[in-house]
């Protein structure tokens, strides 16, 4: 959900960009982070805890807690809360600690 009307801030006309999330086509706006775009689409579960697989979501938004780690363009452990969304990005949920070989 996005803010429609705000007494102080102007979000105005925003430019739509597209990305995929676990293979599905999604959209966000220029200026979004990967995490804010997913959140706006109602996707709260961004990662799973490594051992017990407990769902984890957006928590600190400053790149400090790793709760939002995902695989972005084949790079694992990307802190999606401080990663700017780009057109054509491939975003996936991460299995466990993330596979380094994915990048080779």
């Amino acid at each position, binding site marked *: 959900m*996005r*803010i429609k009307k*705000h007494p102080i801030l102007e979000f105005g006309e925003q430019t739509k960009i597209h990305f995929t999330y676990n293979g599905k086509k999604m959209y966000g706006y220029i200026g979004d982070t990967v995490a804010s775009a997913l959140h*706006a689409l109602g996707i709260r*579960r*961004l990662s799973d805890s490594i051992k017990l697989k407990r769902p984890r979501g*957006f928590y600190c938004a400053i790149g400090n807690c790793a709760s939002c780690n995902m695989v972005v363009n084949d*790079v694992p452990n990307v802190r999606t809360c401080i*990663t700017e969304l780009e057109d054509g990005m491939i975003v996936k949920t991460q299995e466990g600690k993330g596979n380094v070989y994915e990048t080779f």
Partner: protein
Amino acid sequence: MFMKHFRLIIIGGGPAGLSAAKIAAESGVKSLIIERDFKLGGQLVKQTHMFFGSEKQYAKTRGINIAKILINDVEQNINMITVMKNTTVVGLYEDNVLTVLQGETYTKISFDSLVVATGASEKFLAFENNDLPGIYGAGAVQTLMNVHGVLPGEKVVMIGSGNIGLIVSYQLLQAGVNVLKVLEAAPTIGGYKVHASKLKRLGVDILTNHSIKKAIGKDKLEKILVSELDDKWEFIEGSEFEIETDALCISVGLSPMGNLLSMIGAEMKYISKLGGLVPVIDHHHETTIKNIYVAGDVCGVEEASSAIVEGYLTGLLVSERLGFRHKDFDNLYDDYNSQLDNLRSGPFGVRTLEGLQELRGERNVK
């Protein structure tokens, strides 16, 4: 191996770091600002409210606009200030070297002097299921709403009635979100009365002596269990009740982020009035490790206003130590110190002053 070298490196592009770079540039020192986010401004970029304080620190101006001024000052000065965004400092070593991570690449950079201005991080609260999606730090909620225009949920409960908890609750209302309750474990409201009354006028209930016992939900937050607390901060049996909510916002204070300083072995001291573990510093804002300085929330959680002035002061002092004395050094030095004294003379400033006295043993200046 060829290693990049800078006379001055500043870690963190928040108000403290930006201000330090500005004065260093004015003194004639070129610097590099390293920021892990993809934008500069630190905590300020999400603050839509007007600041208190005095005119010199932009009181009556909204945080977002102060950020614009500070960022502009730095970006105007490309000859003197280099900025590296999307870059996290992950290591700090003896011999004036640090390691940065950009994407998947680690690089070493060396410096003559370093200013650590990494700010603070939000404290967490221990309760059952506190890791469910839908539970956020108050700063994260602000970022979502005020930077990205995204709503955290429809019905929010705020934990903590300090100024940040109160301000963010008000901002949630402005964004059209229903704030169900503000819970405060202490017997009295922590923040300024003006902020609390504003919320009360808008129908938000602030419950003192109350806290969360557990969060309930499957894949995301659905409900919370709240309990009353007695005067020993113990849950009162039988007082529990549930609140249906899809977003819980935790605002129980900030702690300085001095991990890099601990890593390099700078002497740290736990001072609760300054927010937690802070580096021991001298009158030049230098830590116990030579050539490593600090400014802003990392050396005691305060406000953006004081972070800005501390940044200026530290930039001034570091430059002088590097052999570049600002042409107006004496006046500026006195001015910054008196601004800091002023900022610390209010009801909340007293805490900082006492904390600093504890840290330093005697004097009032950081």
